[in-house]
């Protein structure tokens, strides 16, 4: 794709979210490549992205768009460090990073983007803006120069925005009561998978995975595409039968699942109410009892009651994800499986959906298994993180330990590839090997910076190991938990 774009020595390359669907490691490679090409050809790049971290990495200037207008434009460092528009503030606040407070609700912008069909008379952001005044709703604000090279379309003076919102940044989110340490609960574990192996013909998706999810615990599975994390989730869901190995679920109850593409997981011609109440049919409830239950669950996921009559096609992305959650939890399951439920949503919506999953988990006392390729998401939703590579778990442990103190070279590479404001991402060379023929020994050795000869030995069997009694375990013969 990039080769085609540069073939004619262009003056300008327009890149429309070129890295959105990619893993962080590949994303870092692509960004690096684009910057190198720019310097070699001497062209300009217009880069479209919803990820401020990516924007920080690649751009000299940033233009923030909202509802068809430029909210603010200026040099990258200035815009990110001292945003002039309340919307930019909101974006930066709802952004998840590896430093986001864990036991706290995530900041999310209230409301939603106005409909492009019926534009508002005044500033389009006014309904969601904490600084909005009556004047904001009257006429659209003119772009004003606030500093050399910086323009913002907001009638509130730059200084006011900075002082008002700068201070709120740290204080607005409410604390969730610190979680009672998952003490040795008397309940049996929700999921016990032993030596799970799944092969699709020659493709080895899972190559021996043992995972126990405690009652009420939340576990995140992270890894690049092809690591088998989604297959593992489907095996737990019972959608795939493991080729070998055993799986036990608490109470034999079927887990419920929230899919990545919530729209596609809702039958398009059935109404939301029908889809939700369908799960209650086996319980021998009367029609009105079912309706009450639907109303209750819709309220619980923060949706208005009349949405029960709508069909999936009429809902926004965030609403669809909430409907999926309502459908999954109308009969509370013991295990809720989430397959990248927020990867298709923009930052602010993603934050509110993650908040909702956390709330549901606490109030309904469910275990959660959460698949994501985004480590910052994993850190916020999970008690424990399991890092997967080519069908195996290479590192597993408490979320903070895994992110702040990654031990396995692959986890380190993942953490290092995340683009962030004011931080160069380091590039992990290569791509995962094909699961059709995983490398011998430790399958990460071809990309591993510290690999030694023994790592490629066909006889080598790397097992998860950790210090005695420690929940932090690593599958590496070179690095151990100290």
């Amino acid at each position, binding site marked *: 794709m990039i080769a085609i774009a540069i073939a004619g020595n262009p003056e300008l390359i327009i890149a429309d979210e070129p890295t959105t669907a990619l893993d962080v490691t590949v994303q870092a490679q692509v960004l690096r490549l684009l910057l190198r090409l720019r310097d070699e050809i001497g062209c300009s790049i217009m880069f479209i992205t919803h990820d401020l971290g990516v924007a920080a990495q690649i751009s000299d200037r940033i233009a923030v768009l909202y509802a068809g207008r430029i909210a603010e434009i200026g040099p990258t460092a200035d815009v990110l460090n001292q945003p002039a528009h309340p919307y930019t503030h909101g974006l930066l606040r709802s952004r998840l990073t590896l430093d986001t407070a864990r036991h706290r609700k995530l900041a999310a912008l209230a409301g939603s983007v106005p409909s492009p069909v019926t534009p508002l008379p005044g500033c389009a952001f006014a309904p969601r803006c904490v600084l909005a005044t009556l004047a904001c709703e009257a006429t659209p604000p003119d772009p004003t120069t606030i500093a050399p090279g910086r323009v913002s379309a907001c009638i509130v003076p730059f200084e006011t925005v900075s002082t008002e919102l700068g201070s709120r940044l740290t204080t607005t989110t409410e604390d969730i009561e610190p979680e009672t340490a998952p003490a040795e609960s008397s309940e049996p574990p929700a999921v016990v998978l032993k030596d799970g192996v799944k092969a699709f013909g020659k493709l080895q998706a899972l190559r021996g995975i043992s995972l126990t999810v405690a009652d009420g615990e939340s576990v995140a599975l992270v890894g690049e595409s092809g690591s088998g994390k989604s297959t593992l989730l489907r095996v737990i*869901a019972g959608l795939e039968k493991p080729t070998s190995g055993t799986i036990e679920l608490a109470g034999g109850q*079927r*887990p419920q*699942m929230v899919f990545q593409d919530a729209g*596609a*997981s*809702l039958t*398009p*011609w059935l109404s939301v109410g029908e889809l939700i109440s*369908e799960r209650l049919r086996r319980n021998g409830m009367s029609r009105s009892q079912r309706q009450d239950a639907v109303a209750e669950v819709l309220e619980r996921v923060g949706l208005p009651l009349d949405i029960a009559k709508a069909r999936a096609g009429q809902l926004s992305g965030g609403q669809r994800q909430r409907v999926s959650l309502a459908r999954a939890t109308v009969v509370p399951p013991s295990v809720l499986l989430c397959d990248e439920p927020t990867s298709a949503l923009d930052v602010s919506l993603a934050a509110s959906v993650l908040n909702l999953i956390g709330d549901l988990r606490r109030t309904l006392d469910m275990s959660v298994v959460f698949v994501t390729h985004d480590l910052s998401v994993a850190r916020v939703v999970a008690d424990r993180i399991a890092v997967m590579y080519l069908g195996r778990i290479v590192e597993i442990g408490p979320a903070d330990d895994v992110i702040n103190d990654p031990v396995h070279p692959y986890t380190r590479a993942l953490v290092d590839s995340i683009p962030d404001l004011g931080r160069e991402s380091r590039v992990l060379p290569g791509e995962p090997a094909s699961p059709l023929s995983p490398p011998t020994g430790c399958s990460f050795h071809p990309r591993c910076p510290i690999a030694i000869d023994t790592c490629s030995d066909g006889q080598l069997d790397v097992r998860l190991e950790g210090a005695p009694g420690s929940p932090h375990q690593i599958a590496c013969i070179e690095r151990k938990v100290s």
Partner: protein
Amino acid sequence: MAIALPAGTLARSRVRLLSLPKSPPMLTNWAAVSLVLIVTLVAVAVPVISPHDPLVPAGMPLQAPGKGGFLLGTDAIGRDILSRVLFGVRASWFAALVVVAVGLLIGGLVGLIAGAAGGWIDSLLMRITDAFLSLPAPVLAIAVVAALGPGFLHTLVAVSIVWWPFYARLVRGEVARLAARPHIEAARLAGVGPIRLATRHLLPGAVPNALVAASLDIGNLILTLAALSFLGLGQAAPAPELGADTARNLTYFLQQWWVPVMPGLAVLVLALAANLSGDGLRSLMKTS
């Protein structure tokens, strides 16, 4: 019977179909679709609007169209051609609707079971369907008529036997395509039973394309039925029948052209109306 179907028109349109037309092209499509309704209404009203008895001579034989108050003229024994054509239209149209309905019902059921169940059930049902599909309509009609005796009803039975496999294949294809979509997996996980899964989560998605195919198919059926009655496999002699009337009166073609041509034209008009409405329906589904 080969009908090109638009890929991926989903049943989301079920809601949309009921909304009012919004733009001129939509209006044209709606007008085309309503042709089916108009023709059906005319067919129902034939006994009332028909000026004469189709079986009894009403005036001088072989009168040209427009003469003596006979809009389409009279045939060799003085029967009103307009009345005969109207009753012929009524018979052909209802026959076509019945065969299409039977086809949709049997074919839809077989296709739904095959597509929803998959595996060996699918293979078995589809091989049976293939066997029926390989029967040539006229030959089978002759065989059935030979076995059960002549009669319009027997012809319809024969045509229905060769007609439903087309719908079975169509519905099975649609259902199998839908069955691979994530919403079926999600419904299974939600604990939806197999029967509800088939009828509520799969079938509604196959209905729009099946309806489009069916309305396009009415035209084919009218032509096939006319051809069969042309061969003498239709209604018994005095009864008005478009294909048979054309065939019996071909000898008048050079002198009194209207006698064979009028019923033939009616076949053309019916087939055209059916095809136009099918196309209209397809466009409506596409735009929604």
